[in-house]
Structures are given as structure tokens and as C-alpha cells.
């Protein structure tokens, strides 16, 4: 499941001062960035950024969306050229003055001395050519070799990044690779010319957590093996903690804090860094602690003995026809009670979204039973379902797609009221205003359109809309995965608070194990359409029964570099087992 950074534009850059000098180095630094600025029209994406990277060093650039971290990384390879962006300051990479170099000089740098690994491995490779050919093409740009030799080199590097049967696979096109293999292939491309610097821009963001762990391990090994420098751009503090020596925290285009990774993550000096770290959900923290950490209020325990709100028995849903028919959800049974939160975790393609949509009957189950308050609703036709519709609500993942861009948010929130037969405009306005206020917005926002809101605000609107229907159950499908970590925490807290207040049942679907633990009373782990494990949250996290659960838990990056090393060891253990 891909996570999404929302589109929150940086509200103008304020120079928060340049950083202190980088890690002391004796030889010429591999990267030396001085007073780098990048402007897109009126917007300053990078604001007087300076840092250095010694040969063989690893620097993590961490920041939320809009912090300018990617723009800074692109500047290292002069990728802003010809895009209309203005780049100021100086960038020296492996002896090349990137901002001053001509096309030829730049091409000689790109791929040869400094190579880049991009975020989305599928779109970053040409879909029409075999992977091996693409690597060979790049290799031949920089090395005067014939086609055959270049192909041989391609197979060699593919083999190096751990692609089994590399010679055969080099003839496949990108879509025939799995996500992890594609990212390996991109890394292989980067390795082809033995660069001195590897720039990785969110290299694992598009990947599942288990695959992410493998890629991070690969980068870790390669760095130690080849001695190349690594500049890792990521929004995920955990990923940085796993992979780099130094870390640079960015916000609104400028540096916030920089230092050795253990120090910055362990003892942050700047308030923003602290805030950021506090917001990161932690796998090892129990629910009680996490919620009160944010909210500071005592938790009302879930009502264990309440009657089941919704009950699924052997629920099944298949897509496609004939031989191509696959069961996205294959016999799932679960129960949610009022006032209780059930967390469902799983990687992409595990069927958790399909399951969620079936629970609110946006999708019709192929078979199995679905009971809402004891009444079978799994096969009810739309007309008969209508009375129940409003009691089963959903909060969607994508805050952009879940609101009609052409209607004011007030209208969207008012929908369930109108559908319920409310005709009095004044009452509708009051009620919508109250709902907006309840989710942390202002009643005056009624007239605004979705694009005027940030991602987190839109998600609050989505919650308000769900609440407007006075539901008994809300299914939240990855409600925070598209949000920045600080916003994430706020939305999670809001959900928890509302549930406590209204006593509704909550199904919380997410790929992020830490977030799920934060909100769930019980947790179900889903894989390939079936629940592999289900139980009390703490029990599942602290004493996982299923090997897959264990594998998932081990793959989650840790904030503490020491813990990260331990997990890496654990993963190797699991892999060998």
C-alpha cells in the first residue's frame, strides 16, 4: 500500500539560519552544498541549505512533505535544469560544480559519478524495454563498450543486487518484476558505473514494509561493500535511523537540525525535531500510553460484553471471470462491538480494503454472511439496505478523491442530513457547523471547496461527513496513510476521541503496524485474503503467533539506531529460518 504525502504547499520559506559546518573531514568532501536555494516561481522550495558529505558517508535528509528535501536532492544532479526552477548557491558533487557545469559536464556526472534511485520503481523504468537493456544503455553512455559487454555488466549488477537468475530476468520488462525487484533493478542501474555517490529519493516509500526492510538492508550492505557515499531522502524517520550516519532535518526548505543520527533522534535539540519524533507512532508503545500521550485524558475501556455490532462469517469476495478469477477476500470471519476498535493490518494486496468496503456494503460479498445488529445485510438489495446505509459509514484513504471537488465541503457533509429528509436549511447549517467544529474546523468553512484545505483538514471533513449520518460503525480505510506524521497523529487522536465520546464501533484498516497499535483494542492481521491472526492488540504485538506477523513486526524500522541494528539481525534470522 502506497503512502501518500499530501499536497500541503509550504507557506513561503523563512530562513531559519544555515547549518553549522558538516562533519569534519580531511579529504575533499564528496558533496559540498553551500547556500543552495531552489525556487519554483514564487515558491522557495529550498532555502539557503548548506551541508557536506564525506566520501563513504551517509546522510539522511528527513522532512515532511513540502520541506524541500527532494528538491535539494535533485539539485545534486542538476535535475532542475530546463524545468523553469531557479537554482542558486553552489553544489559541488565529486568535483563537478553542478550549477556551473555545461550539458556535457553534467551528463558525465550523472550516472557515472553520482547516481540516483527514485521513489517509484515502476514508473522510473521504461515500460517498453527489458530491464537489462535499460541498464546496458546507461552503462554504454559512460563506458566505451559494445552492446554485449554492456549487457554482461547489466546482468552482473542485477546479480549483485540480489536478483535471482539475473541473466534470464534481465530480459524481462519492468512490469514483469515485483515491486521489490524493480527497486533492486533501479539500484543495479545506479551501481552499473560504480558511482561515488548514491542519491536515494524515498527509495522505499512505495514498498511494503517487509520489502522496504530488504531494500534498506541491501543499501546498507552495498555501502559497506563499495564505499560509496549515500544521500538518503525520506519522510520516514525510522528509515533514516536504519540507514545513515548523519541526519539532516528539514522544514520549509531550510535546515532545522543536523547531526549524527543517534544524537538527533535520541536527543533532539530543536522543538520541531522533538515534535516530529513525538508524532512518530511507535510499534513498541501500548495503546494506553500513546493515546494519553497525545490527549492526556483517561481511556474509557472498550465495552467487552456489548452485543456484536457487525458480524462477518466466512465472508468472501472474488473478482474477475474464468481462470482469472481471484478471491480478494477469502473466508474472513470477524466481529466488532460498539465502542470497540478493531485494527486490520496487512500489506498491499492483502484484501483489507475489499474487506472494509464489504463491511459497509459498498461491495457485495460473493458469499458468506454479514450481520448488522443481528440482521443479515450481506445480500440485501440497495433499496432495502437504505435504512442501514447511514449507520455504516466509512472514512477513506485519499482525502483528495473522497470529497467532490465541485461541491463545497458543507454540502458534502450535509449530504447524509438531506438524505435523511432534513429540509430546513438553517438546521442543516447549524448541524454541519457543529460537526465541522467538532472535528477541529470552523463552521465558516461550510462554503469552502476541498482544494482550499490541507490533507489533514480534508480528512477531518471526511470524518465530519461520516459523523453527520450518526453512524454506529465507521470503517476507516487507511485514514492517515496519506498524511504527514504530525497530522497523522492528530487525526488518529481525533478518531479515538470521537469513538470514546460516541461509543461507536471502529474498524481501522492500515498497513502501518505502529499506527494500528495506537488505536486498536483488537488487531487482525490479513494476508492474501485471509486473517492469519486475530486477537487483543497487545497480545498480537508482543507475542505474535503467526510467522507472518512476526516477519511484519521485524520489518518495521525502528527509531533507535541500536534497536534498528537489532531488528536487522532479527530479520536475517527470520530469513535464514
Amino acid at each position, binding site marked *: 500500500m502506497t503512502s501518500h504525502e499530501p*499536497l500541503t504547499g509550504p507557506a513561503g520559506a523563512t530562513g531559519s539560519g544555515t547549518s553549522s559546518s558538516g562533519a569534519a573531514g580531511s579529504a575533499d568532501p564528496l558533496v559540498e552544498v553551500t547556500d543552495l536555494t531552489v525556487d519554483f516561481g514564487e515558491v522557495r522550495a529550498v532555502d539557503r541549505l548548506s551541508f557536506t558529505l564525506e566520501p563513504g558517508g551517509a546522510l539522511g535528509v528527513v522532512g515532511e512533505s513540502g520541506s524541500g528535501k*527532494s528538491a535539494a536532492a535533485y539539485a545534486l544532479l542538476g*535535475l532542475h535544469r530546463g*524545468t523553469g526552477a531557479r537554482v542558486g548557491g553552489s553544489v559541488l558533487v565529486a568535483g563537478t560544480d553542478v550549477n556551473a557545469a555545461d550539458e556535457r559536464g553534467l551528463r558525465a556526472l550523472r550516472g557515472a559519478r553520482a547516481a540516483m534511485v527514485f521513489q517509484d520503481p515502476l514508473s522510473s523504468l521504461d515500460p517498453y524495454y527489458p530491464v537489462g537493456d535499460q541498464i546496458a544503455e546507461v552503462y554504454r553512455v559512460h563506458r566505451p563498450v559494445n552492446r554485449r559487454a554492456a549487457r554482461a555488466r547489466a546482468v552482473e549488477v542485477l546479480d549483485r543486487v540480489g536478483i535471482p537468475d539475473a541473466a534470464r530476468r534481465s530480459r524481462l520488462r519492468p512490469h514483469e518484476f515485483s515491486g521489490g525487484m524493480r527497486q533492486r533493478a533501479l539500484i543495479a542501474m545506479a551501481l552499473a558505473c560504480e558511482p561515488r555517490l548514491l542519491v536515494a529519493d524515498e527509495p522505499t516509500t512505495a514498498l511494503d514494509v517487509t520489502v522496504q526492510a530488504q531494500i534498506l538492508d541491501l543499501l546498507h550492505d552495498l555501502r559497506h561493500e563499495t564505499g560509496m557515499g549515500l544521500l538518503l531522502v525520506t519522510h520516514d524517520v525510522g528509515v533514516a535511523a536504519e540507514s545513515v550516519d548523519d541526519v539532516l532535518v528539514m522544514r520549509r526548505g531550510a535546515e532545522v537540525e543536523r547531526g549524527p543520527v543517534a544524537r538527533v533522534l535520541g536527543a533532539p535539540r530543536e522543538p520541531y525535531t522533538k515534535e516530529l519524533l513525538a508524532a512518530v507512532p511507535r510499534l513498541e508503545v501500548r495503546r494506553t500510553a500513546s493515546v494519553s500521550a497525545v490527549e492526556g485524558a483517561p481511556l474509557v475501556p472498550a465495552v467487552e460484553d456489548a452485543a456484536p455490532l457487525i458480524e462477518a462469517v466466512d465472508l468472501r469476495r472474488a473478482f474477475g471471470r474464468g481462470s482469472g478469477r481471484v478471491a480478494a477476500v477469502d473466508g474472513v470471519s470477524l466481529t466488532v462491538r460498539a465502542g470497540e476498535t478493531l485494527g486490520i493490518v496487512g500489506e498491499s494486496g492483502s484484501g483489507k480494503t475489499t474487506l472494509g468496503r464489504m463491511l459497509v456494503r*459498498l461491495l457485495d460479498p460473493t458469499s458468506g454472511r454479514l450481520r448488522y445488529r443481528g440482521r443479515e445485510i450481506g445480500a440485501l438489495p440497495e433499496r432495502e439496505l437504505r435504512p442501514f446505509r447511514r449507520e*455504516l459509514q466509512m472514512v477513506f484513504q485519499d482525502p483528495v478523491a473522497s470529497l467532490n471537488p465541485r461541491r463545497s465541503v458543507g454540502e458534502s457533509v450535509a*449530504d447524509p442530513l438531506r438524505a435523511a429528509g432534513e429540509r430546513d436549511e438553517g438546521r442543516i447549517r447549524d448541524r454541519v457547523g457543529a460537526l465541522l467544529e467538532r472535528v477541529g474546523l470552523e463552521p465558516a468553512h461550510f462554503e469552502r471547496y476541498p*482544494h482550499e484545505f490541507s490533507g489533514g483538514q480534508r480528512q477531518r471533513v471526511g470524518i465530519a461527513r461520516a459523523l453527520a449520518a450518526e453512524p454506529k460503525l465507521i470503517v476507516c480505510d487507511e485514514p492517515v496513510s496519506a498524511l504527514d506524521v504530525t497530522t497523522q497523529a492528530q487525526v488518529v487522536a481525533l478518531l479515538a476521541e470521537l469513538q470514546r465520546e460516541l461509543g461507536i464501533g471502529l474498524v481501522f484498516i492500515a498497513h502501518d503496524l505502529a499506527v494500528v497499535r495506537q488505536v486498536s483494542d483488537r488487531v487482525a492481521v490479513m494476508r492474501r485474503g485471509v486473517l492469519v491472526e486475530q486477537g487483543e492488540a497487545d497480545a498480537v504485538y508482543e507475542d505474535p503467533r503467526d510467522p507472518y506477523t512476526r516477519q511484519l513486526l521485524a520489518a518495521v524500522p525502528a527509531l533507535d539506531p541500536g534497536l534498528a541494528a537489532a531488528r536487522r539481525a532479527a530479520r536475517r534470522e527470520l530469513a535464514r529460518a
Partner: protein
Amino acid sequence: MSEALLVQEAGAAPAVAPASGARSFWRRLRAQRAASAAALVVLLLVLTALAAPLLTALAGQDPNTYHPDLVDSAAGGVPIGSFGGVSGEHWLGVEPQTGRDLFARIVYGARVSLGVALVATALQIALGLVIGLAAALGSRWLDQLLGRITDINVALPVMVIALALLAIVPAAFPRPVLIALVIGGIGWSGMSKIVRAQALTLKSLDFVAAARLSGRGTWSVARRELLPSLAAPVITYAALAFPTNIIVEAALSFLGVGIKPPTPSWGQMLTEADTWYQAAPTYLLIPAGLLFVTVLALTVLGEGVRTALDPRAASRLRVGTRTGGKEESA
């Protein structure tokens, strides 16, 4: 422009674009110089067509009066005088054989050409919307049926069917209306394909799911959630289909099944002028040139409308880094 391309181009309009009021649309349209110029030309043409009786009265002519004395009967009826008989009275000269005033016929012809295309386009859109929405929102069975009907519509040779239809409808039926109906009735499949595809895309979007969860009926959801979002592709398609329909009308008239004399239309003038290109070249060049300018202006305007409705069209072409995060994956 072929339907396939129309579909491809109009279909590229975003399913979900930020809400944009009419005002911002006009602002973006005006920002394009070519489109503004084209709009001006189109406006002029429309005014000319509307004011046809006024203009011809000003010229002191009418489109149907014969002037046998202005043509050289022994030479086949070629206009007497240079440039097809241009004079103070006959600003663009006269028609060979009949001596009818060319200016008056051109001006009245604009009415027919624009009017027929307008009605035909409106019809295409109405049919396309209804059929496309029904296919997207109706049952699977209905979708299959409508899909097959669309296939038949695509496989029909337009000209032949038009020929056949124009032959079987009683002559008393007003020709321009009939032609508009035929063009509209035959050319809706492109629109319906776009509407269906867009509606299917929209249907799968979360805000539609949310609307369903709020307990509203299918058609209520379609009307409030889908239709507003369909406006952009529909308007774009219409803007690009309109000039195409002008060409189709001209082509039908050119094949001799279009507008019937004495009603003037540009296509029909072209047919008649077809053989006269050597003896009276202006007779051919004037309607041909006007047809060209009209279609070009409308096409440029259509492109402008598309760009104005789809602000991403311009930015989509920008090459290089994506800076604002992953907004495009939305």
C-alpha cells in the same frame, strides 16, 4: 478530426479537476492569445449569421433573386466582369448561371452551416450523455447492450447511412433540421464512450462511494456527483465536435444529400462551385476559404476551451522533477 481523436483528446480531460467557476474558466481562456482571436472570429461569424437579413438588406440584395443579365449565357453562364462579377452592388460577385448575389448567399449560408452544426452537436451531447450514463450506471446487461449498439454506430458508414436516411424521409421535413438530426443521431458514440468511461472512473472514486453511504439513490448520486464532473470533458468534446460537424454538413452537401437549394449552405455552394474553379475561381475560393477559417477558428477555440478547462494540460507537459510531493498520483 476523427472521432477517435476527439475521444482521445476530450477524454484526456481530468475526471476530477479542482472546482473552477465560470469566471476562472474565462480568465484562463482569455489568457490564450490564439483562442481569444479565434473567439473573436467565431463571434463575428455568429453575429454575421444572426444579422444575415440585416446585412443583405444593407447590401440591397437577397440570396434568391436571379440576375440573368449578369452572366454570359453563351459561355455556360460565367459571371460577366472580373473576380466573378464583383461590383458596388455585388460585393463578392455573383453566382455563375443564376447571377444570384454571392455575398447574400454566403451570409445566409453561415446561418445554415453554424445552425446545423450547433443542433447536431447538442444532439450528440444529449444522446451521448444519456447513453453513456445509462451504460455506466445501469446494469451489466444494459451496459453490454448499449456497448453493442455503440459498436454498430461506429461500424456504420456515416455517409451511406446519411444518404439512405435523407432519401427516405419525406421531402416536406425541413432539410436543415433533418441534417442536424442525422449528424447528431449518427455521431453520438464518441460522446457516449467518453461519458461512460468518465462516469465509470468517477463511480469508482471515494466521494461517490461516500455519497452512496449517505443513503442517496443512484440517480440522485449521478445527478449531484457525476454530472458536474462530466462538464469538463463534455464541454471539451462539444467544442471540438462542433467544427467537425460543420465539416460533416459541408461534406453531405458536397455529396449532394445535404441542404437543398435554394437554401444556401457553404458545402452546397462548394459542390456547385466544384466545376467552376477555372472559369470562376472566386466562386469556389470564397466558400472554401470561409469554411476553412470557420473550422480553424472553432478548432482553435475548442483547444483553448480544453486548455482552460484542464489547467493541468499545460503543466502536464512540464518536464523534470515533481516538486510538490506525490500530488499526481491522486
